[in-house]
């Protein structure tokens, strides 16, 4: 029962932080709230018995990503955010609420009392059993690095930048052929 409450509080806390991150008017507090979400998530993971993942989450999720975000903010600057959303908020709320309820309702029966875990070392699963994942991950990281290099490298393409906006199909007159 107390364990239940712990988890519930952690979940609520994470969701609350996520919400704050989302509605905050400036990007820096958002980033910090995201770090909080990450921290709370890693506590949850720790309590679930996934100590190694908790560490990774804390270092990568809360650490690395926050640093990255802060760095990006320093590059792009803090836009003053217009709070009105494009989507009517009630629509967004109803849509998300309905889906959450349905998903929760369908997923809940899955939870059974866990059978005793046969403890396997993470390292062994990751590096031995699932070595292929690691290899694909290497390819993924390579692609990601190339992607970032391609997007941020200093050199300019030979074509000059064209600031003309692409004409929108609807605005161009099209003689109807039929």
């Amino acid at each position, binding site marked *: 029962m107390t*364990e239940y409450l712990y988890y519930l509080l952690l979940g609520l806390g994470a969701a609350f932080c996520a919400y704050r991150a989302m509605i905050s008017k400036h990007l820096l507090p958002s980033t910090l709230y995201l770090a909080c979400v990450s921290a709370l998530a890693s506590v949850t993971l720790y309590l679930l018995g996934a100590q190694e993942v908790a560490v990774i989450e804390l270092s990568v*999720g809360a650490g690395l990503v926050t640093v990255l975000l802060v760095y990006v903010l320093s590059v792009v600057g803090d836009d003053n955010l217009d709070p009105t959303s494009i989507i009517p908020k009630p629509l967004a709320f109803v849509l998300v609420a309905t889906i959450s309820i349905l998903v929760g309702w369908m997923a809940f029966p899955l939870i059974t009392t866990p059978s*005793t875990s046969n403890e396997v070392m993470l390292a062994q699963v990751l590096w031995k059993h699932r070595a292929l994942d690691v290899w694909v991950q290497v390819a993924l990281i390579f692609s990601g690095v190339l992607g970032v290099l391609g997007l941020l490298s200093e050199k300019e393409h030979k074509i000059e930048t064209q600031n003309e906006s692409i004409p929108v199909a609807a605005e161009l007159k099209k003689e109807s052929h039929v």
Partner: protein
Amino acid sequence: MNFDPLNAVLIGVVLLLAVGFYGLLITRNLIKIVLVLQVLVKAVVIALVLAGKDSGNLGLGQSIAATVIVADTVVAVVALALAVQVRIRIGTLDLSKISSLRG
């Protein structure tokens, strides 16, 4: 009501997902969209570990959760690089202004 602790974790996951999706719908800032995607990834990571634990395969759950964290960080980095380019070239991060392609 079943007070299995894992149920509470599931509630947490669903809540995080809900907030994340809500965020995707109402956020207009590109950087924040990336940020919200990270929230969703956190929910997924917890869900994977939870699934591993629930089925008695915590090692498996942990292993794939760790992989997901790394993979999605790469995606976030690429997304941020794109966002930086968008800010430089289009001059805004406001999604309602990044909509020249329509119709």
